[in-house]
C-alpha cells in the first residue's frame, strides 16, 4: 500500500533521513519508534510532501507521491494528525472537525463520522462551539486526532497521538487506534510511548539518527533487548 525506498531527506545541509526503506500493507498498524531527532516526524512529512525526498521514492497504491503536492496526496486517501497539533485556533471545534472532511467526496457519510468523533471524545462535544485556541493542550490533541479521523483516510498517519494526554485517555486513544484499524483504516503510528505502540501495532521499525536499525513484528520488538533497554526504560 505504502512503500518508501531508500529515501533521503535533507533540511538544508542536514541529513534528516539517510536511506529509509519501509512498507505498510493494507489493514496494518505499523509503528515507528526512536529517540527525539531520529527522523520519525520527517518520515511522515516526506510521505505527505511537506518535506521532500532528495533521493528515493515514495509510492502509495501505485501513485508516486514525491512528485505530487500535499493536497493531491491527501486526496489520494492519506490524512495525518500532525505533531504539535496544528489546529485552527480561531475556528470553532466543530469547524475544525468539518475541515478535516474537506477533501471527501462522500458528503453524506460525514455526519455519522462527526458523531463518532464526539462519542470518542465527549470533551470535544462539550466544547464544540468554542474556538480551538481556547482549548487546553490535551483537548487540542484530541481535536487534531478527531480532525484526522474526519478525513476517513485509507492511510492514517498519527504523530505522537498520546502526547499530553492523561493516562486514561492514552488508554482510550490506543483502543481507538485499534478500533479504526479494524474498521479498515491502515495506520502508520509514530510514538514515544513505545510500549503502548508496540502493543497495538502489527509491525514496527526502530529508527536511529535517520536510519532504520531494526524491523520486526511488534511482539518480537517488545522482547528485543535493544528496544527494552533503550525505548522502554527497562533496566
Amino acid at each position: 500500500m505504502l512503500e518508501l525506498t531508500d529515501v533521503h531527506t535533507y533540511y538544508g545541509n542536514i541529513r534528516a533521513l539517510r536511506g529509509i526503506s519501509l512498507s505498510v500493507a493494507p489493514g496494518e498498524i505499523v509503528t515507528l519508534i526512536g529517540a527525539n531527532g531520529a527522523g520519525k516526524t520527517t518520515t511522515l512529512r516526506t510521505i505527505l510532501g511537506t518535506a521532500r525526498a532528495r533521493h528515493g521514492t515514495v509510492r502509495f497504491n501505485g501513485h508516486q507521491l514525491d512528485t505530487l503536492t500535499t493536497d493531491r496526496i491527501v486526496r489520494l486517501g492519506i490524512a495525518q494528525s500532525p505533531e504539535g497539533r496544528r489546529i485552527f485556533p480561531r475556528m470553532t471545534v466543530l469547524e475544525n472537525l468539518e475541515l478535516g472532511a474537506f477533501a471527501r467526496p462522500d458528503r453524506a457519510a460525514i455526519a455519522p463520522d462527526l458523531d463518532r468523533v464526539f462519542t470518542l471524545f465527549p470533551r470535544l462535544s462539550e466544547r464544540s462551539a468554542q474556538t480551538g485556541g481556547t482549548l487546553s493542550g490535551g483537548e487540542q490533541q484530541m481535536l487534531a486526532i478527531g480532525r484526522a479521523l474526519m478525513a476517513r483516510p485509507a492511510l492514517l498517519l498519527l504523530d505522537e497521538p498520546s502526547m499530553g494526554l492523561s493516562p486514561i485517555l492514552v488508554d482510550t486513544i490506543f483502543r481507538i487506534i485499534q478500533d479504526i484499524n479494524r474498521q479498515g483504516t491502515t495506520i502508520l503510528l509514530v510514538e514515544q510511548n513505545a510500549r503502548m505502540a508496540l502493543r497495538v501495532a502489527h509491525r514496527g521499525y526502530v529508527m536511529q539518527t535517520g536510519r532504520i536499525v531494526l524491523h520486526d513484528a511488534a511482539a518480537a520488538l517488545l522482547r528485543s533487548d535493544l528496544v527494552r533497554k533503550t525505548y522502554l526504560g527497562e533496566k
Partner: protein
Amino acid sequence: MTVNARRPLGWAALVAALVAYPFVDRVLGFQTVHAVSDGMIYVLLALGLNIVVGYAGLLDLGYAAFFAIGAYSMGLLNSPVLGSPLYGHAWSFWVCIWIAAAVSALLGVAIGAPTLRVRGDYLAIITLGFGEIIPVAIRNLGDVTIEIGSWRPIERLNLTGGENGVNPVGRPYLPGVPFETDPVPWYFLILVIGAASLWAMNRLRDSRLGRAWMAIREDETAADCMGVNPISTKLLAFALGASFSGFAGSVYAAKLQAITPGAFEFQVSIMLLCMVVLGGAGSLKGVILGGMLITLFDRVVLTQTTFMVRALGRTLGVSALATADLTLWRWFFFGLGLVLVMVLRPQGLGGRRLSPAPIADDAEDPTSPDVASAPRVDAIPGWLRERARGGVAASPAILDVRGVTKRFGGVIALNEIDLVVPHGAIIGLIGPNGAGKTTFFNVVTGLVRPDAGRITFDGANLVGLRPNAVVARGIARTFQSIRLFQNMTVLENALVGEHCRLAATVPGAVLRPPAVIAEEARAHARARELLEFVGLGGKEHELARNLPYGDQRRLEIARALATEPRLLLLDEPSAGMNPREAETLTDLIGLLRRELALSVLLIEHHMEVVMGISDRITVLDYGTRIAEGPPAAIQRDARVIEAYLGTGYEQDLASRTSAS
C-alpha cells in the same frame, strides 16, 4: 556602503573611503554628495525605525510622524519666521538637535503608551492613524483662531507655518566650516551623527535591553514570564526609535533650509519601512544597505538613466523616449524591487539567513541513541548553589494558595483551589485534560488574575503582580508547548532569563562603564555554565529553533534556572520524550531539589515521572480539587482512577514489574 569590516585594517579602509569620497566625487564631477547625504539621513531614520520594527517587532506604519516632529522641533525653535527664541545664536543648532531628539522621544512614549495593550495588526493601524494625524495637524495649526461668542482670545495664530511650512531654518555654526550650499560639510556632519547613532545602536543591540526587545519580538508572553517587563521595554523601543528620527529630522530641516508638511506624508513612512524590510529587519548592515540603495536609486540612478534614455531618444528620433521621465516610475521600481527581494530573499538583503530546523544532528554518533546524558552533580553552577544557600525562609511554605477561583465566561476553570508547596518539596499537579492545571500555573505566575483567593510566596502576596514581577520574586516556569525565543541563539535565550537579575540601563548599555562590562561578562559566564549543566554545551550559538526537540525542552529549563528561582513550575516537561529521556529528566529535577533546595510544582502525565518524584500530589478535575496526598494514596484513590488514571495504568505497572 557596507560595514562588513571586522579587522582594524578593514575599518581603516572604510573610514578612509568615507572621508575621501566627497573629494573624489568633486574631482570626477559626479555631484552625488547631496544625494548621498540625503541618503544618510534616510538611513538614520530607517535605523531608528529598525529599533521599533526589527528589534522589538512592533510594526510601525507612521514613523514619518517622528521625522516630522524632529524637523519641526528644529524649525520652530530655530527660524526667524515665527519669532523663534533661539534663532541667530551660534549654538542654537547644537542645542535644538538635542531638544528635537528629546521631544521626539517624549512623543514616542506618548504615542506608544495607548498602543501597548494592542498587538500586531491593531498596533500597525494605530501608528498608521498617528502618521496621518501629524501632517494634518501641522497644516492646520498654521492658522488658529479660537472664538467664544464675540470674544477671540486667539486670532489667526501661526504655530507651525501651515501649508507654507517654515523657511528659512537656522544653519549649524562651527568656526571655519561653511554650512552653505556646498554639500561637503553637510556630508561630514551627517556622517558623524550617523556613525555615533550606529555605534549607540550596535551597543544597544548587544545589551540587556537589546535582548529584551528581541525576546518581546519573539514571544511577548514568554518574555514576560522570564522577567522582561513588556510595557517599559516596548515604550523604550518607541522612545529610542523616535529620538534617532529627532536627530535625522533636525539635520534634514537645517540642510534643506525649509520644511513643509508635504515632506512627511504616508509614503515617507512606507519608504522607510521598505528600507528596513529590503535590507533586513534587525540587521544594522542590511538597513544601511537598504536605505542607501533606495535613496541612491531614486536620486541618482533614475535621473541619470532618464538623461541617457532622452539622449538615446533624440539620437534615434523617437519622441516618446526623448521626453521620457523615469523618475515618475519610482514607485513602480520600488514595488518591483520589494517583490523580488521578498520572493528571492525574504529575510532581506543583509538579514540573518534562517536555516530550516534540522531534526537529526549530523555530528551525532549514529550508533548511540542515548543523546540525553545524565545530569551531573559537579556540573551544577557554583553561583546557583550559592543563591540556594542564601535564602532564609520567612514562612513554612514557599507557595501557599488558598481558595483560588477563576472563571472564563460561564466556565469555572478553577474552583476554590488550595495548594501548598513546602520549602524544598516537589509537588505533582495532575488531572484530566482541560482540568485547569495550566490555568493554575497562569494564575500563580500572574498571566491570569484570579477572581478570588489568596496566593502568597514566602509569606508575601502575589495576586495583582505582573508576570515579570513574579519572576523577580523567585518563581520561574516552563511551558507545555515549548515557548523559546526561536530566532535568538541558545546563549541569548539563557541570557534573557537573567534579565531581571541584571541592572544595566540605557546609558549604561551605550556607554558601557566598567560595572556594566563586568555584569555582562558575569551574565555570559553564568549562562554558559547553565547550558553546560543541562547538556547544551557547545550549542551556544545555534538558533533555538534549530535545536532538536529534547534540547529545546532542556533549554527551557536552563532559561528558567537563569532567573535564579526558588520555585520552579514545570508544565509537562517530559511530553514527547521516551521513557529513557523522561528518566534523565526525572534525575535532573531530583538533583535540582537535592542540591539547590529548589521547590518544584510539576504538571505531568507520565506517571513514572510524577509518581516517582513527587512528595505529594494534587489532582484537579473540571477545575476542582478531587484528591490530595502522597503518591501511593493517589494511585489507589477511586476518584482519581476513574477520572484520570484509568485501569490501564495499574496493568501497565504490573506488567513492567513482572518484566524486570
